[in-house]
Structure formats: structure tokens, C-alpha cells
């Protein structure tokens, strides 16, 4: 391999992190289903534990198959490295737990996946980590919410469920002026639609369960680091991030930012976070997600093409009050979507039925191709009613702040023939119309 720059997306999706197996000649990524790895000698064991030599010790910390997945995601994101986790929620927790402790504060978008909102609003507050939620488009709100104990700004590339496009260039600038990193959940967009690092984000995570895997078969997550955030500068200026910039008694007195200028965050996250919290990914899961990543661009193109057709159909249907898809000019984030998501705004979006709750229920139950379940990013089309499922813990005020009503229905558009999806929706809308 040679050239003037990194290879293209599709080449990386197939080759990054792997080569034909030297021992067997296997071309596909071998699946290393093993908990642990034999030491060559006592001296070798000691040097691995002391980070004098690189290698695998125990699959909670690292595994050769899982490492291929991690390196491939890092390559596709344009980052320095990544850590695979048991789920997307585990990736979010790993990012926060690496940087925050009791007394820390986070500024987060109010338009979050319900599970992320639960973690920040309810669970982490029990551990002394507070969060201020701001509307994703309120740049002054982001700036004003930063406190001396703020450690992180956090949002989703496409807010859930209204699909507000996160203004990563401006929010990252606000974060960096305060010597803070911006963490972005890019699950709905994948690196094929946007690479948040190119726009200023510092940390990116995915629920790999969704489009990266793409087949609805496994649960997993991944957290990537751009390697560009200067933790030492933040520490010198504001005393932030001693976890990375001061000796850590829990791991050889290591100062992670000295060990690796660009890998300090990932070192701490792996050496402490995976070691102690243990939310690692199974190598079997990593292997399955790798099969999905190899066709990511092909699938995302089709997901987006189908989503555009469905969104346009719904937007012109008399029983539909509104469609929240940024590709449509009517969406408040349309201009930002054109700027940051030129390949499309994904294939998960919501729309509002004009009718009653009863009609909404009739609509969902009449669908034959769309499956009613709590997931997105499957190759099959999916549907859910957020107010009674993913966001059911929110009161009406919080729902309204997140842009959800009782009639909101979320779709995840799959890879079926678009005409069949439109027929399914037409039939269900007709059923809903009769259900008044």
C-alpha cells in the first residue's frame, strides 16, 4: 500500500485493522474466542502488565478480533483509536466515567435518546454528576451552561426524536474555548454520513447495535477518540482532567498524557474503565459487527434513498401533520443538514399523525412490513411510538422539550424495496383513517 493520503472509506471499511492472517492465511478476520492469552515467560507477563510491551492479556481489556473492530471504526471516523464496549450505553458511560467523578458537571443537548437522558438525568445524578440540558440549537445556552466543574459537552449528531442536526462546528468551538471536549453520539449517522472529528468533535461513540452492525443481531458500542484534544492544556489552564494528566495510583502511577500524547484518554478508558467497570464487547459480537461494517456505505446509501422516498410520501399525505426529516426543506435543521450531512440525514425519523391516540395505535398495528419494536438501524424497517416506549419516563414538559407529542411515530427505514414500504404505509394510514 502506498499513496498520498489514507485510502477511501470503502477500502478502509474492508481492510483497516486487518490483513491476511500470518499463521493460517485466513483472508477474513479470524474470530478469537478466548478469554486469555498465554505468556511467553514470566518476564513477558510482567512486561505486558507494565506496558513495556504491547499485546493481549485478557479479553475484557483487549482481544485480537475486537481490536480489528476498534481500529476499523477509528479509521472510518478519522480518529486515533477506539474502544469497543458492551453497548452504546456502555460507551457513553465509559466516556463519562473516564472524565468525570462526583462533583463533575456535563452540558448536554436536551434532544437525546431516552436511555442517554435517563443515564444523565437520573442515574449519574445519584453518583454526584450533574447535567444541564440545553436545546441543541441554542448556542448561547451551551455557552451559558458551562460551569467551572464542567468536564464535557455532549450531543447527538441527529437529536432524538426530532432530528435536530447538532451544530458541531459551533458547539465544539464553544467547548474548546472553555478547554472542554465535545462528545458526540453518531449512531444515527455513522461515519459514512458524517465524521464528527472533521467538524471539531473530540470523542465520538456509536451504538454499534444499529447501522454499524446493520442486521439487528447483536448489541454493542464503540467509543473513538480524535487524539486532537489537548488534555494537558486544559489541566494547566483550569486544573481539569487530573485523571489523565496526573499520576494514577491505580495503574503503576502512570500519567496517561505522558505515556501517549494522543492516546491518553483511550489508555485511561481501557486500563481503568474496561478493567474496573468491565462493560467489554464479546469478540463474537465484534466479528459480527465487522461483517456489517464491510457493507456500511452500500447499506447507508440505500437506507437514505428509501428514507427520502418515505419522507416525501408522508409529507404529502393528508393524515400526516408533519414529518421531521432534515432532508425536507420544512425541517428547522435543513440548512445545517445540507452543510454537515450532504450524503443524507440517515433513515430514522419521526412524523406526527393528525389523528387520535387510537388512530396512532391502529396505524402501527396495521403495518405488515414495518416491525413494531424498540430499535433502529436494522436492515428491516421498524416503527415505534416514543411517548409510550423509549421516552415513557418523561413528563409532558420534558416530552415537549424533546419535540415529542402523543401522536409522534418514529420510523427506521430499512433496505426493503421502497415501493413495498410505501404500500405498507398507505395501507396502515387508510386503516388509521377509518379508526376515528
Amino acid at each position, binding site marked *: *500500500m*502506498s*499513496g*498520498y*493520503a*489514507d*485510502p477511501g472509506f470503502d477500502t*478502509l471499511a474492508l*481492510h*483497516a*485493522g*486487518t*490483513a491476511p492472517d500470518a499463521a493460517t492465511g485466513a483472508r477474513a478476520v479470524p474470530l478469537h474466542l478466548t478469554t486469555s492469552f498465554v505468556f511467553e515467560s514470566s518476564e513477558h507477563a510482567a*512486561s505486558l502488565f*507494565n*506496558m*513495556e*510491551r*504491547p*499485546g*493481549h492479556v485478557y479479553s475484557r481489556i*483487549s*482481544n*485480537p478480533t*475486537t*481490536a*480489528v473492530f*476498534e*481500529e476499523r471504526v*477509528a*479509521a472510518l471516523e*478519522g*480518529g*486515533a*483509536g*477506539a*474502544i*469497543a464496549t458492551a453497548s452504546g450505553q456502555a460507551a457513553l458511560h465509559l466516556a463519562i466515567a473516564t472524565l468525570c467523578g462526583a462533583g463533575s458537571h456535563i452540558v448536554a443537548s436536551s434532544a437525546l435518546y431516552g436511555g442517554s437522558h435517563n443515564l444523565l438525568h437520573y442515574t449519574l445524578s445519584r453518583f454526584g454528576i450533574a447535567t444541564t440540558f440545553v436545546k441543541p440549537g441554542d448556542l448561547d445556552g451551551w455557552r451559558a451552561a458551562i460551569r467551572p466543574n464542567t468536564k464535557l459537552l455532549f450531543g447527538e449528531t441527529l437529536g432524538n426524536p426530532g432530528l435536530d442536526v447538532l451544530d458541531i462546528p459551533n458547539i465544539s468551538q464553544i467547548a474548546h474555548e472553555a478547554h472542554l471536549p465535545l462528545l458526540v453520539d453518531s449512531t444515527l449517522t455513522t461515519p459514512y454520513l458524517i465524521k464528527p472529528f472533521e467538524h471539531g468533535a473530540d470523542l465520538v461513540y456509536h451504538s454499534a447495535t444499529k447501522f454499524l452492525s446493520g442486521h439487528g443481531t447483536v448489541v454493542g458500542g464503540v467509543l473513538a477518540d*480524535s*487524539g*486532537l484534544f*489537548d488534555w*494537558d492544556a486544559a489541566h494547566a489552564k483550569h486544573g481539569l482532567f487530573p485523571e489523565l494528566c496526573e499520576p494514577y495510583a491505580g495503574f*503503576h*502511577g*502512570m500519567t496517561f498524557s*505522558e*505515556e*501517549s*500524547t*494522543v*492516546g491518553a484518554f*483511550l*489508555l485511561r478508558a*481501557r486500563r481503568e474503565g474496561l478493567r474496573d467497570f468491565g462493560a467489554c464487547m464479546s469478540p463474537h459480537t465484534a466479528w459480527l459487527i465487522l461483517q456489517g461494517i464491510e457493507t456500511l456505505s452500500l447499506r447507508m446509501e440505500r437506507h437514505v434513498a428509501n428514507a427520502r422516498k418515505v419522507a416525501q410520501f408522508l409529507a404529502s399525505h393528508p393524515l400526516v401533520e408533519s414529518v421531521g426529516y432534515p432532508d425536507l426543506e420544512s425541517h428547522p435543521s435543513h440548512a445545517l443538514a445540507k452543510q454537515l450531512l450532504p450524503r443524507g440525514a440517515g433513515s430514522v425519523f419521526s412524523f406526527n399523525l393528525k389523528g387520535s391516540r387510537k388512530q396512532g395505535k391502529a396505524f402501527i398495528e396495521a403495518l405488515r412490513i414495518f416491525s413494531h419494536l424498540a430499535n433502529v438501524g436494522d436492515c428491516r424497517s421498524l416503527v415505534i411510538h416514543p411517548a409510550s416506549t423509549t421516552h415513557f419516563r418523561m413528563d409532558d414538559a420534558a416530552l415537549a422539550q424533546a419535540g415529542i407529542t402523543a401522536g409522534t411515530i418514529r420510523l427506521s427505514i430499512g433496505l426493503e424495496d421502497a415501493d413495498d414500504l410505501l404500500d405498507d404505509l398507505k395501507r396502515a394510514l387508510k386503516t388509521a383513517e377509518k379508526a376515528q
Partner: protein
Amino acid sequence: MKLIVNNVEAYAYTGGKPFDPALPCVVFIHGAIHDHSDWTLLARWFAHHGHSVLAVDLPGHGRSVGQPLADMPALARWVLALLDAAGVERAALVGHSMGSLIALAAAGQAPQRVSHLVMLGTAYPMKVSDALLSTARERPLQAIDMVNSFSHSTWAPKPSYPGPGTWLHGAERALMRRTQASQTGRNLFEHDFQLCNSYDQGLNDAARLTCPSTLILGARDQMTSPKQTKELAAALKARVLTVDAGHSLMTEAPEQVLNAMRQALGA
């Protein structure tokens, strides 16, 4: 570890152990727009196997403050001054790429103070193409991508560096971008590559050496081709060890490089 060298604060990584000037000392010198973190695994190994270690950040790079120095002799003098500051009389000098030329120049200036010379990913002369120099001058971020691409021989180095999960292309690009950005108002990339390009005293410096010397080369190095080392190797009477890697051999093949380093230093 902070040191005062020529009245300016300098940083050297000591391999995870307090520096002990009484032990055999190994000085690691990084390449253009890099820093000490290229060496941390090797530095930790030697620091925990009977050596004292100074993996330096050159002036204006990484954690060492001050301006980047003007030429190779000045950098060589800086390395010798660093030894003075650390209380070290004699050390093994180990350098990668630009750092290998600094090590050679320092050994040429004070051969009695150098116990071993180890040059990794090296060539002499280390000529830089006009195209790269002009790109470095006009579009340094693009030049970083070019050098980054040419420095790696694989998309799948195992087990990666400093450990699994690191995408070396991205990590090295991030390091170069950060190092470049740290010098506001100065194009450090162009500065460092000009230093390599203009150093023409390599054979004279080599002729003054009295210590054993070793070249550790990447068989697939596209930046400093192993073919460009024959004259230097002859002048140094150097042992030449080759590892299966590109120019970024310490990160692409850390185990092979450790084995070669142990041979070079008799460790």
C-alpha cells in the same frame, strides 16, 4: 521529568521510573514534528531492565518549551547539554529519522560521551523532495497526510502501539497535527524537514565515532529507504538490523524493534 537545558525548560520521559544517573543511560530522540511518545514502550522496557532513560521532547516540540533550534549542530549541542543537566557523563544515543541524524551529530561532537549509537528509520543524506518541501511550506496539513501515508507500510500493524485498538495512521496524524499547531506563527513541519534536508556532515561526524553503532531499518520504509544507508553504514562500520515495517517502525513493529534494540545495546 523537567530539566533546564541552556536556561530553557525541557521535558524527558523517564520510562515510568525515577531517573537515576548512576545507571547506564539511554537517550531517545524523536523524529520530525513528533515527540517522546514514539518511544514509551521501549523506554519503559529499558527503564525496568537496568537502564536510566531520557526520551526527550526536542525544543519547541511536545512538552519542551522554547523555539525549535536552527540546525543540526545546535540540536546536537542541546542533546549534550541535556546530558549535563541530567548529570550523565556517557549515554547511548538512539534516534529515529530526524532524531537519528541529531544522535549522529551529537556523537560526532562528543564521541567520548556516547556509549552506543542506534539510528532507526534513517538514511544519509536524508534528502527531502522539493515537492514535499513546497507542500510543507504551502499546505502543511496536506504534507502531514502525505508523510503519514508514506510512513506506514500496513493498515493492520499488530498488536498496534501503544496497544490494541490504536489506529496508527490516525494516531500519528493527530500527533503531527498537534505538534505543528503547538508552534503558533511557525511552520514546524517545514522547519524540521529542512533540518533533515540540509544536514551534510553525516560522514564527517561518523568518522569521529568510537562507539559501536547499529542501524535498525524498516524493510518497507518509503521515507528513508534502506538503500540510502550503505555509505553511512560503511562509514560507521555499523551493524544493520532490518525489521518488517515501514518508516514508523517503532509503532508498526514494537516487538521486533525491541529485539533489535536489545541486540544493539547488549541488553
